[in-house]
């Protein structure tokens, strides 16, 4: 695998060169300590040091609103067409937590029957990661789930070495970009500097909740009736923010719309949230998750229990967004700690 070097002074040229070919998106400062992935045209738009964006980059692969089908009902027999809007694009500055999030969604949507809309958008994107040399803030728990180091999921991966980036090339698509821009190869001195960053990270990033992640499955196995859920239910306001901002949440709803011509229409997919009161209601009125406590519990099981058996990993990447966004100050770290109390699983 190749490593290339990009001087920080050359970042602007790099972004501009990419932007001439395709849409380039990157984290942008939005004020009040908030950041968002947005289209950029030069490096000065980009916030290189940022806490996780309001929405994770999943919005580019699974947009908040997207058209799945178009149909025509003007004839005797209706006609339909499955469509996707998948532009060629580059996403720059994706932290390792969000790379892990994209990998989780890749697994979900490529599982048969595959979701071609998601996969098509994903394959058209050039993904460029950016390493966190230190914590973004105290809400992150990336070390708990091992998402503080890169584990693939990118074409190019940037690590800040002070005056320059060292870029790991993970795919031929990434190599073509690096070669096309004639980025020099990394020297042994650069490689040593990268090793030093990683070594330093080992000291900085420590398990954030003091509970061995290997014990979490057992903790959740016994946790269905734990009092922490009713406590969360008492505070949760069912706004659904936690799931909207989660890099691994993908629940959705669909609805048909008829156009004004009354002859054509389309089916739209929108984000949905298991935290909303009517999420598990069936026709006839039965609600299978009526209580806020049940819905919060469901969210945590969807992160720490169920995907473990199916996908061999937690569907939490430790980004901390759910905690940061929660109006009721429900903290993922505190919830896990509370759940582990009495289990004897502390380290």
């Amino acid at each position, binding site marked *: 695998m190749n490593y290339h070097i990009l001087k920080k002074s050359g970042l602007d040229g790099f972004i501009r060169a990419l932007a001439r070919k395709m849409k380039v998106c990157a984290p942008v400062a939005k004020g009040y300590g908030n950041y968002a992935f947005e289209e950029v045209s030069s490096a000065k738009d980009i916030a290189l040091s940022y806490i996780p964006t309001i929405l994770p980059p999943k919005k580019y692969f699974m947009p908040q609103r997207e*058209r*799945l*089908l178009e*149909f025509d*009902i003007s004839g*005797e*027999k*209706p006609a*339909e*067409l*499955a*469509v*996707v*809007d*998948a*532009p060629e694009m580059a996403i720059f500055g994706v932290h390792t937590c969000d790379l892990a999030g994209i990998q989780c969604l890749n697994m*979900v*949507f490529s*599982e048969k*029957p*595959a*979701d*071609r*809309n998601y996969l*098509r958008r994903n394959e058209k994107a050039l993904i460029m990661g950016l390493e966190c040399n230190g914590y973004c803030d105290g809400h992150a728990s990336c070390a708990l789930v091992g998402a503080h180091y890169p584990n693939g999921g990118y074409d190019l991966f940037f690590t800040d070495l002070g005056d320059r980036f060292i870029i790991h090339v993970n795919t031929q698509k990434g190599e073509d970009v690096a070669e096309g821009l004639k980025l020099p190869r990394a020297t042994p001195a650069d490689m040593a500097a990268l090793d030093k960053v990683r070594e330093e990270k080992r000291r900085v990033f420590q398990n954030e909740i003091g509970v061995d992640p290997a014990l979490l499955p057992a903790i*959740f*196995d016994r946790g*269905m009736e734990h009092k922490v859920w009713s406590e969360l239910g008492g505070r949760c306001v069912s706004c659904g923010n936690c799931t909207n901002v989660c890099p691994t949440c*993908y*629940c*959705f*709803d*669909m*609805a*048909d*719309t*008829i156009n004004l011509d009354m002859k054509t*229409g389309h*089916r739209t997919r929108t984000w*949905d949230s*298991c935290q909303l009161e009517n*999420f*598990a*209601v*069936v*026709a*006839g009125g*039965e609600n*299978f*998750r009526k209580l806020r406590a*049940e819905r919060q*519990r*469901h969210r945590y*099981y*969807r992160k720490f*229990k*169920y995907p473990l*058996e199916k996908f061999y990993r937690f569907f939490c990447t430790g980004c901390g967004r759910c905690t940061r966004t929660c109006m009721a100050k429900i903290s993922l770290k505190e919830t896990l700690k509370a759940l582990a109390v009495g289990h004897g699983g502390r380290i």
Partner: protein
Amino acid sequence: MSEIINNSSWRLRMGRITAARRMTAAEKWFEIELEDGDLEHEPGQFVQVELFGVGEAPVSVCSSPTRRGRFELTVRAAGRLTTHMQTLKAGDWVGIRGPFGRPFPVKLMIGNDLLLVAGGLGIAPLRSLINYVMDNRREFGKVDILLGCKTPEDMLFGDEVKAWEKRLDVNFSCTVDRGAPDWKGNVGLITSLIPGVTIAPERTFAVVVGPPIMYKFVIAELAAKRVPERQIILSLERHMKCGMGKCGHCQIDHPKNYYCCKDGPTFTYEEVKAASRL
């Protein structure tokens, strides 16, 4: 700048309604023929029915795959789409996705006695199995069918039910919650019928389909009869929106968080007994 995806899982198969009949005040029966061939379903599976512009809803297939070419649905006006469906008639087109879901384990049932229990609209999915069993009657041991509904007027598939009553190779009984004075059959909950059935528990598969409230009581009766938990088969109800184990609406509160649409809707009691609600 959209592109067309021909292999999209969201594509619909066009189905033409070949026959439609009102069954009760709230339920209508449809026979549908797909333009592109057979549905290729198995007993216990469901389809997503699309009414263009209205939306989509999951509906159990109530016909047996042994009767190929067309399939049947029984739809109760319960939500927006199913209420709208009541206006459909022969000749109308609908969009169909599917079949979806894990079917009843018919292969495992071969050589065993069957106790088939349906409450209310549960007869719709169970009928796909009942007719499958009728068409493959030789493969199974003793067959008991228990049916419960609110009143005699609510009974679905009345003609077929009469035929089952007459057959010598199945034992059929039915009960209503309340009957008119001229009702000569049983009155009471479906659980009251189970003690009267002779069961060899080790070689019996009990298949139970009905409203969530029914499961608890029927399972208790089956447990009293010592039917093994993995031979009690349930078909659970949830809102299965996508049918592909993705949209999240049908997940069950269970340590394994089953997607009802993909891991189910049929489950053994052994699999789902840890669920906080059936």
